[in-house]
Structures are given as structure tokens and as C-alpha cells.
């Protein structure tokens, strides 16, 4: 898929900040949560970028801010070469044809009063795609593409299992022919045996359609199979970015190393490893000075409290925000 300028990324996010006020409305001492703090990233056309972080890391907020589902506090978002950070609502609506999202919970993201056929037709209708007699065949084609069939057209979401609902949500997102998809933990709510089905479907569709994808997940296990590059987020900041294979084989940031070590492995011979991190993530209302990870970091020194570590290049395409490694 060609994009303006040839080498320009499809999505270019620069110094994005997303703040929320945690209002102590009655005492008047409003506090600010920096959910996303100075995040820059790019995603090329057809590239899959994994975004990994634990709860409170800002991964979902970042995904939504990029799609302008919430308004970023500061920073810039370029899509296909144009600045969309403050694009007016009408123009943004037209752009949604190119930028879609699949949410985590397929039980909450489909309207229970609409048939599956109507859910997909509505997506087409909003963007004037396949009007009139062309609509139903197009809807059936979409259903088939995600492994369902015309027999499912007049059924309601409650008649489907979680995995099938997520297929419907994927069909809806892809109905309008997007170039960029945010997949926000699309398999976390599904049974283990179903997760692989949906991951493989996403992988197939991504390759067939040449989609760029921001794949959000809470652990590193699932992301490896889909991602070209992986971004690790902690308390709203990027800790490390690397090509997927490189990140798993050669993690450079102590947080990435801990995240990898913490994943329970289906291998009893490796049991009994000590928990890699002590303590809890600090409150995002009062993040640590300097490196936000330093309070749990096994190799932190006094210096880590003094400066915010810059995201430095360690190897081609491999960046880490740590002054100690």
C-alpha cells in the first residue's frame, strides 16, 4: 500500500501526553494523572506494533488517544502525513473509515438489540459503502471472511460464544476497509482454546489486507506471534522498543526483563523461579521522580531518581530508556 512521501510512516505520534484530572472536587485540590507521558511512536503501513504494559501503564489510553476517541492533552498525531491532532469532528468522522478499533470485551461492544447483519450493515451505512442491493452480499462476505456464514445474519449477539462475538467485532472494524486497526486486548476475555483461533484470524486478515495494527496486550506472551515491533510501557512512559524477536531474545530494560520472567511457563522443569519484582506499581497520582520504574528496579541507583532517562538507541531499531543498562 503506497503512502504519501514513500518513506513516511502511516501513523506518527510525537510527544503525546494524556492527562486526566483526579478531582477532589469538594476540597478543591485537583490532582493530575499523567496517563500517557511524552510518548512518541511510528507505525508503518502494514506493520504490526505490539503495545505491552500492565494495568495503569496507559496502553488503552494511548490507543484511544491515537484514534482521537479522547482528546490528547498535548503532542501531535499524524496519519498518512497529515496532522489529525485537532481535526474537527466532521473530518475525523470521515477519517474513521481508515482507523478502526476492536475492543477487549465482545460482550459489551456489540449492541444486544441488533442482529449481526444490522450491526455490520450499520458500519457500512455510516460510510456510504455498498449501498442498496450490494449491502447484504457485502455483509455476508464479511461474515465469511471471519469464519461465520450467511446463516448467522439474523441472529443476535447473545446467541454467539465469546470467540464468535469477537469475530463479529473484527468484521465490523474491517467492514469499512481501514488501513489502521487498534486491537485492544482482543483475546484477553476469551477461553484459551479460542484465543489462538482469533489471533490466527487477525494474523491472516492483517496479511491479506496489509493492515497496520497497534496490538495492545497486558503480557508479552500473546504479542510475539503477531508483532513486527514491540513497545513496552510502564506508568505512561515507553521503557523499551525493539523488533519483536530482538526484544524477546535480548531485552535491555530491567522492566522488560522482569515482564518476561514473570510469565508462568508451561514447563514444570522451570518452576520455582523467584518473583522478578517486589512491591506494587506506584500510584500514577504520585509517580517517582526520574525513572518511573526505579522504585521496583533491581539495579536502580540514586542517579535514577535525578533524571528522566531518555529513550536511547541501543541497536538499529532497538531503543531503551535506562541509564544503567
Amino acid at each position, binding site marked *: 500500500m503506497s503512502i504519501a512521501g514513500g518513506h513516511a510512516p502511516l501513523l506518527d505520534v510525537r510527544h503525546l501526553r494524556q492527562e486526566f484530572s483526579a478531582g477532589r472536587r469538594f476540597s478543591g485540590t485537583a490532582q493530575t494523572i499523567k496517563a500517557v507521558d511524552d510518548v512518541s511512536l511510528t507505525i508503518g503501513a502494514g506493520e504490526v506494533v505490539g503495545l505491552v504494559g500492565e494495568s495503569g501503564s496507559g496502553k488503552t489510553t494511548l490507543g484511544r488517544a491515537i484514534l482521537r476517541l479522547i482528546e490528547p492533552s498535548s503532542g501531535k498525531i499524524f496519519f498518512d502525513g497529515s496532522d489529525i491532532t485537532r481535526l474537527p469532528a466532521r473530518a475525523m468522522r470521515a477519517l474513521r473509515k481508515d482507523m478502526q478499533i476492536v475492543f477487549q470485551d465482545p460482550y459489551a461492544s456489540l449492541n444486544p438489540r441488533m442482529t449481526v447483519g444490522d450491526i455490520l450493515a450499520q458500519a457500512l451505512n455510516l460510510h456510504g459503502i455498498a449501498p442498496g442491493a450490494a449491502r447484504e452480499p457485502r455483509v455476508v462476505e464479511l461474515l465469511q471472511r471471519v469464519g461465520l456464514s450467511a446463516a448467522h445474519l439474523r441472529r443476535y449477539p447473545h446467541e454467539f460464544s465469546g470467540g464468535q462475538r469477537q469475530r463479529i467485532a473484527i468484521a465490523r472494524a474491517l467492514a469499512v476497509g481501514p488501513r489502521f486497526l487498534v486491537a485492544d486486548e482482543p483475546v484477553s476475555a476469551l477461553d484459551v482454546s479460542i484465543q489462538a483461533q482469533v489471533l490466527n484470524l487477525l494474523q491472516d486478515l492483517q496479511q491479506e489486507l496489509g493492515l497496520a495494527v497497534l496490538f495492545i496486550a497486558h503480557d508479552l506472551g500473546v504479542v510475539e506471534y503477531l508483532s513486527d515491533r514491540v513497545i513496552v510501557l510502564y506508568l505512561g512512559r515507553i521503557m523499551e522498543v525493539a523488533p519483536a*524477536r530482538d526484544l524477546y531474545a535480548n531485552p535491555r530494560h530491567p522492566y522488560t526483563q522482569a515482564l518476561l520472567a514473570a510469565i508462568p511457563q508451561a514447563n514444570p522443569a522451570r518452576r520455582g523461579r523467584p518473583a522478578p519484582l517486589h512491591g506494587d506499581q506506584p500510584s500514577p497520582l504520585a509517580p517517582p521522580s526520574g525513572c518511573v520504574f526505579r522504585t521496583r528496579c533491581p539495579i536502580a541507583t540514586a542517579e535514577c531518581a535525578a533524571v528522566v532517562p531518555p529513550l536511547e538507541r541501543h541497536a538499529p531499531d532497538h531503543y531503551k530508556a535506562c541509564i544503567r543498562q
Partner: protein
Amino acid sequence: MFTVNSSYPIAAARSSPLVAIEDLRVEFAADAGAVTAVDGLSLTIERGETLAVVGESGSGKSVMALALLRLLPPPNGRITGGRIRFDGVDLAGIGEAEMRRVRGTGIGMIFQEPMTSLNPVLSIGEQIAERLRVHAGLGRRAALARAVELLERVRIPEPARRAAGFPHQLSGGMRQRVMIAIALACAPKLLIADEPTTALDVTIQAQILELLRQLQTELGMAMLFITHDLGVVAELADRVVVMYAGRAVEEAPVGPLFAAPRMPYTQALLRSIPRVDRTASSRDRLAPIRGNMPDARDLPAGCSFHPRCTEARAACIVAVPPYEAVDAAHRVRCCRWRELAHAGTDLGESAADLAGSRGVG
């Protein structure tokens, strides 16, 4: 410091298993007749042993635990067959008061969502102390002192200060530690843990698993660990029972279960999960299990797994396969397990797997 003498009155033969479930059947009343949630389940838990019961939604794993505690939701859920013995006593034969004592002092429980299990308006110390006052007969002051000791035992920093605090002031991981402290208050012989780390972040999950492992060694209690996560099973279990659609389909010590699983469902589950201990690339694929979990109201004939099984043959549809012994400790419910074992469909660590393994952790 862990000296509460259980007031639990039943003398048991030391040699018998702590828990013996025989041919358990649990049904739920529904509009269209009864739905069988657990069908002919037998299992034992030895003293001091960790038994993991692994299954997906609808497997019956949580219902089995509720049946063991006699906490099936009335009026719909009920035990319609079989026997459950705990510490030598048939639980069907005792009254509600005695059952409460079993739950209070014989068995501790922790669940997936610690926030909904804690009382938001009682201090943490009081919630632990309440249990000690009711079941161990301690006075108010002694119970509160004990509560602080228990918080220390589950490695909560500044336990005295935390005891005076409330659940909303704690992180998810700390709340689960409090739940563990409450469950252990009366030194139970069995701890039932139903997906206790599923709602937690992965770095916190590792801490809780480590804590449970340490506490079990220190206290010598048995643990029934219910989970959908084979990684967690491998980290913690001595023995494993795999459930599918209300039935046990395989059981084995943890080593053989992962090295040489016999049931095609177990094998398929292991192939379908991401493995960070193996190299993968963005063009590798997971091997999914086709189809969906069956509906408990309309289970497939014969082996419930046959519509999703790549190894299914006509024989699999005829009757529910018997639960056969592979060896003294390993059982499997598959009518083809012998042929499949000969055909070499083992999922053991092959040379290729080992070549691709790497030293994560």
C-alpha cells in the same frame, strides 16, 4: 507463631486422602430441564498436596469446588449423585452448623476477585479477627494481634498499620494477600484457590504464586488450585486433573502431564498457548483448537471433545470413553489413547523444541 489449635473435631485416619470425591454429579435446574455441570467426577487430594484442576469455562471446575464446600447456589444447583469425603467425613451426612465449622477451620478459600470478597467498611484487621473470634474462639484483643501476625505472614509490609486500613487503600495484589491471610487464619488443612491470580498483573501474579508456594511449604496444607492457565499449573501443581465439559478427561503428576499428555484435548491446549520459552517470530502460528466449547444443555454424544478433536473416529461418538489407567498415577478418557501413543503424537520436549528453547527467567 502459627499455633491456633483447630477446633475442628473430627479425628481422621492419617493414611486416607484429605479429600475423596467419588462419582460426583451436580445439576442445575433450568427452564428446559436439568443441566449437568459435573458428571461422574472422582478425584482425591492427599494431605499437603497441590492438586491443580485445569479447564476452560463450562468445564465444571468451579462448580466442583462449590460442591465440595456445599456452597452450590440454591435453589438451582444441587448434588444429585456421588460422595464427598473431607478428612474422613462424608460431607453429605453432617448438618449445616457442622459444615460451617468445616468451612471455617478445615478449608480456606480464595477467589479471583479479592475486592468483591472483602467488606469495604470493615478494617482489614477486623475482617481477619472476625474469623478468629468465630472459629478459634479468640477474644477481641488476641484476635487483632493474631491478625497482624497473619498479615506479616503473607508478607504485607507494615502489618500493624495495614491492619487498621481498609480494602480500598490496597492494591489488587495486597488485597489478594489479605484474602490469603483470612483463608489461613484457622490453619486449614485445605486451601481452595479459584483463579486467584487471573485478575492480577503478571508481575503481581508471580509474587502471589511465590507466596502460595512458600506458605504451603511452611504450613504443610493441601491446596486445590483451580485455573485455566497451564503456565500457572506448571509453576505450582504436584498433580493435575484436566476437565472438559463436566468430566475429568486426564489426570497425572505434573511432569508426565506436560511431557507426555495422552488426551488429545490436553495436547491441543498445550499447542494453542503462546510459549515465551521458545523462539517464535511474527510469522509463526499458534495451533488453535477448532470449534467452540459445547453447550452444557446439548453435549455431543460419546466423547464431549470429539467434534473438536483432530483424532476423532466413529468410535468416539458411540459412548463416553472409560477413564483408563495409563499407569498407576496417570489416567485418560480417550478411546484411542493406546493407538495414539504408539503413533507417537506425544507432545514431549523433542530435540527441535529444545534447540529452540531459551533461557527466559
